[in-house]
């Protein structure tokens, strides 16, 4: 397991929820995990640390104002290391527009700490911008969470087009590890979506689906992973099984 980005250019598909709970599950299985929040909305950061303020974040690392080792924060509840985000990331495209090597900054910054972790997960913003490109170039492959609905195909199309553009324009080949079905309710709809994903895009779809479960939202409110907040919930069991499937 290397650097993996959790990404979908459509919002609301449980990217952050998946990143948090998969990271926590891996940590529970004894893995050393780093989660990088690259979303200016800082959803992952807030879900873990609530309203805690950080003097230095991934923003400072990217603009060269901090070393990456100095911004890593440990979460006892999730048992993972985290690099927090902040709203300043929203202006990073303008700040780095003329920067030489602007698309490879994160990849280079991760080099000193790469081998300290069994897995590095990147929670990406849904919008396509310079930080998303940085995340992709830093990643060996990606995981695409989707909700089983019509627009989920659009999300996959967009991200695959992005990967093609990165390949031709920047020379990096990034694989798709697989697709995770999240927020599922109806088995029939899910089966149709899976069939479409496999036929249209020839992508792997992980067998463990994440159900639409209130326990997940409650866990966010308590700043805990769902497997700690509600270990017997369907979502907790699903994330536990999914994390094993993702690791394998």
């Amino acid at each position, binding site marked *: 397991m290397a650097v993996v980005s959790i990404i979908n250019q459509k919002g609301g598909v449980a990217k952050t929820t998946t990143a948090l709970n998969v990271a926590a599950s891996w940590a529970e299985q004894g893995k050393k995990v780093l989660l990088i929040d690259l979303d200016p909305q800082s959803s992952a950061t807030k879900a873990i640390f609530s309203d805690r303020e950080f003097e230095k974040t991934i923003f400072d690392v990217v603009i060269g104002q901090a070393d990456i080792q100095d911004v890593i924060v440990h979460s006892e509840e999730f048992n993972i290391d985290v690099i927090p985000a902040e709203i300043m990331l929203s202006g990073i495209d303008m700040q780095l527009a003329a920067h030489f090597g602007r698309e490879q900054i994160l990849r280079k910054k991760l080099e000193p700490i790469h081998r300290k972790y069994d897995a590095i997960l990147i929670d990406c913003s849904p919008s396509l911008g310079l930080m998303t490109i940085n995340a992709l170039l830093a990643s060996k492959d990606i995981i695409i969470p989707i909700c089983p609905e019509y627009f989920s195909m659009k999300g996959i199309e967009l991200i695959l087009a992005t990967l093609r553009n990165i390949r*031709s324009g*920047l020379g990096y080949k990034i694989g798709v590890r697989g697709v995770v079905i999240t927020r599922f309710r109806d088995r029939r709809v899910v089966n149709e979506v899976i069939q479409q994903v496999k036929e249209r895009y020839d992508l792997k779809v992980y067998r463990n689906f994440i159900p639409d479960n209130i326990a997940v939202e409650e866990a966010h409110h308590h700043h805990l992973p769902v497997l700690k907040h509600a270990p017997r919930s369907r979502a907790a069991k699903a994330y536990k099984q999914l994390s094993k499937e993702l690791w394998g």
Partner: protein
Amino acid sequence: MTKNNPLFVDSTKLPGDLVPCHVELLKVCLRDGESVSIHLVNHEGRLIQKPLQAQEMEEGCYEARLHLNHQTQVYYQFVIEDENNNILFKSQVYCERAQYALTEQWEPSEEDQKLPVIDSNSPVSTKPTSPSGWQRERPPSYRELMEKWGF
């Protein structure tokens, strides 16, 4: 030629810099004795012909490596020949910016036999194009470089 999103332009390269380009042709089925090659006309009007080799990991995929001038306009076509170098099929002519990869899918049909073969006399632009419209006819000056990188 498609629009150019600056997010997908290598900021470490200037227009005109030489970059390795991986050419990939998918879904092609060749018979015994047949070969496929790329015929490419670069921004200087020079014709480059290179055979594609079968990719071991993926059936029906053929690849080659060229060195092209970054962000310049190129025209290219794929040609299938028999063992006597007779042209059997020609793809449509594609127009793209030279970058790190050119990937196309082509399933040859009888209609393709009527298409012309691209050569250095084909009507192509003799001036390179770049996202900013800056055309490289001479090495850039320090002022141009400073303006480009925002100093």
